[in-house]
């Protein structure tokens, strides 16, 4: 569990993080979304006690990070790609950290295997690809078998295999009851991995909502309809909450009416349909819509 209360970080005149209050809960994957420079990394660094907040507090599992006697058991973090000494082997990197943190050596082999790096454990990190370095970073984060996992841009530089690995791993860690907090600017990845979203823009909290609700609120779901008599059909679908758009001839995007109703009305009027597809707004669209008008919203209800 990560609890941020009025968290603020000022660099000179610039507010990198501006009065952020949010709780990241265990058992679900929480995505941390925002454009570059939104303050995501700074927030994560304050959670880890690496940067000092200008104001406010960041609690991890009920305490400030630095007050934990066994910090790596509490939080495992991947904060930047390739925070690895190029001249050291993968195993030496993990062994050193395990010794420093008082963790058993057996954990080193466990996380090497978990990250699929057993075969290259004795290779110097300087020869690693970006993806292998990222896997070692994740292995480092999991070294202490932590209750809370913080991953900053973990899929950066990973091949499709690696992306799938991170996604599966994040979901499994959450299913084990851990708190999983991971940032990305790849919104499509977020949409499939995260159950809950915390969105930041220009240092401020923009949204703290379940992923589905975020998508719904930001544009709502719609139905794509293809018909040779599209214009005629559009006339039948009018209503108070109904919006009908047409981006190309013969294709309608209908919001506010479920697909069943669109199909039934078309059938009643004897209009042939060539396509009837429910579509979800993309996270990208949702995010753009949200940050464009600087709208701010939060929900108090949290997922079970």
């Amino acid at each position: 569990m990560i609890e941020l209360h009025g968290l603020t970080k000022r660099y000179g005149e610039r507010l990198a993080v501006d009065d952020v209050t949010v709780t990241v809960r265990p058992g679900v994957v929480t995505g941390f979304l925002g454009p570059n420079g939104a303050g995501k990394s700074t927030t994560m660094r304050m959670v880890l006690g690496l940067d000092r907040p200008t104001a406010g507090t960041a609690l991890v599992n009920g305490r400030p990070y630095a007050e934990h006697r066994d910090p790596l058991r509490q939080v495992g973090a991947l904060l930047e790609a390739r925070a690895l000494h190029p001249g050291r082997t993968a195993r030496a990197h993990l062994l050193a950290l395990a010794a420093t943190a008082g963790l058993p050596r057996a954990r080193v082999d466990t996380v090497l295997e978990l990250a699929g790096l057993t075969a290259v454990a004795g290779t110097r990190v300087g020869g690693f690809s970006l993806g292998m370095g990222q896997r070692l970073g994740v292995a480092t984060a999991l070294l202490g078998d932590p209750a809370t996992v913080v991953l900053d841009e973990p899929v950066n530089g990973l091949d499709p295999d690696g992306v799938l690995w991170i996604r599966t791993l994040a979901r499994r860690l959450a299913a084990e009851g851990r708190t999983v907090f991971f940032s990305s600017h790849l919104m499509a990845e977020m949409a499939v991995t995260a159950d809950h979203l915390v969105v930041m823009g220009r240092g401020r909290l923009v949204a703290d909502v379940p992923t589905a609700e975020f998508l719904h609120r930001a544009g709502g779901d719609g139905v794509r309809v293809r018909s040779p008599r599209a214009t005629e059909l559009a006339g039948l679908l009018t209503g108070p909450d109904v919006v009908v758009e047409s981006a190309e001839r013969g294709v309608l995007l209908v919001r506010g009416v479920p697909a069943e109703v669109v199909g039934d009305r078309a059938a009643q009027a004897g209009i042939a349909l060539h396509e009837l597809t429910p579509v979800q707004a993309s996270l990208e669209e949702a995010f753009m819509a949200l940050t464009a008008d600087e709208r701010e919203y939060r929900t108090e209800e949290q997922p079970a």
Partner: protein
Amino acid sequence: MTTALDTPRHTATTTGLLRGEWVRARSLRSTWYVLVGSLAGMVLLGLLFTSTADTGGPSGRGGGPPGVDFAQPLTLALAGYNLAQLALGVLGVLLVTGEYTSGTIRSTFAAVPRRWPVVAAKAAVPGALVLVVATAGSLVSYAVGSAVVDGMPGLGEDGVLRVVLGTALYLTAITLLGSALGWLLRSTAGAVATLFGLVFLLPVLGGLLPAGWGPDVVRWLPSSAGGSLLRLTTTADQFAPWTGFAVLLGYVAVGLAAAVWRLRTRDA
């Protein structure tokens, strides 16, 4: 997760911190290159100076590194320390700045949020390594020198053992000075340049100061003060051997304390 862990049994301990730094130091090839290179350089330079002593030094003109008295076989045998201090000081710098430039220092601080024990462990481990290697280096240099040149004073003679072992202590202190500079400057180039300036450049520049008060300044420089420990006899312009070494240790202590203070107040 195949290995279940208890909590909070898994916490940073002194032994663990030292072991972690030992793994960090030994897992880099550069550590071994520097240690072996310094050992070899010390012994070979000692051999060069002692074997050419009769003909006035390597250049035949009685030249040599500053501060080397060609009339004293003991000083000749140990003259290689001049080169070794460069390499070992750089080792002290690298073991700290290497963690900064690669970013691994942040995972270390994440494991030890209080941070100051990391500074202590990162001083203790290279310090111990260098103390062992430099002691071997000065003893071997002394033995080689004794075999090559006539008139080498015996280890039992006044001050000789102090000079031989003091060379190792001096080199250890310079390594720790490098470590402190590494913490304070966080950049390899900056810390190495500062170290060279302190150890080599300032004593030379100090020599250009007026004779009236110049020596009073020069003897307070880290390498001049610590260098007193490596002299059989000291002049009125120099600190007494152990006093001088204490001054050098004072610089090391101030440097490391400043490093700890900065870590407390600055973001990692």
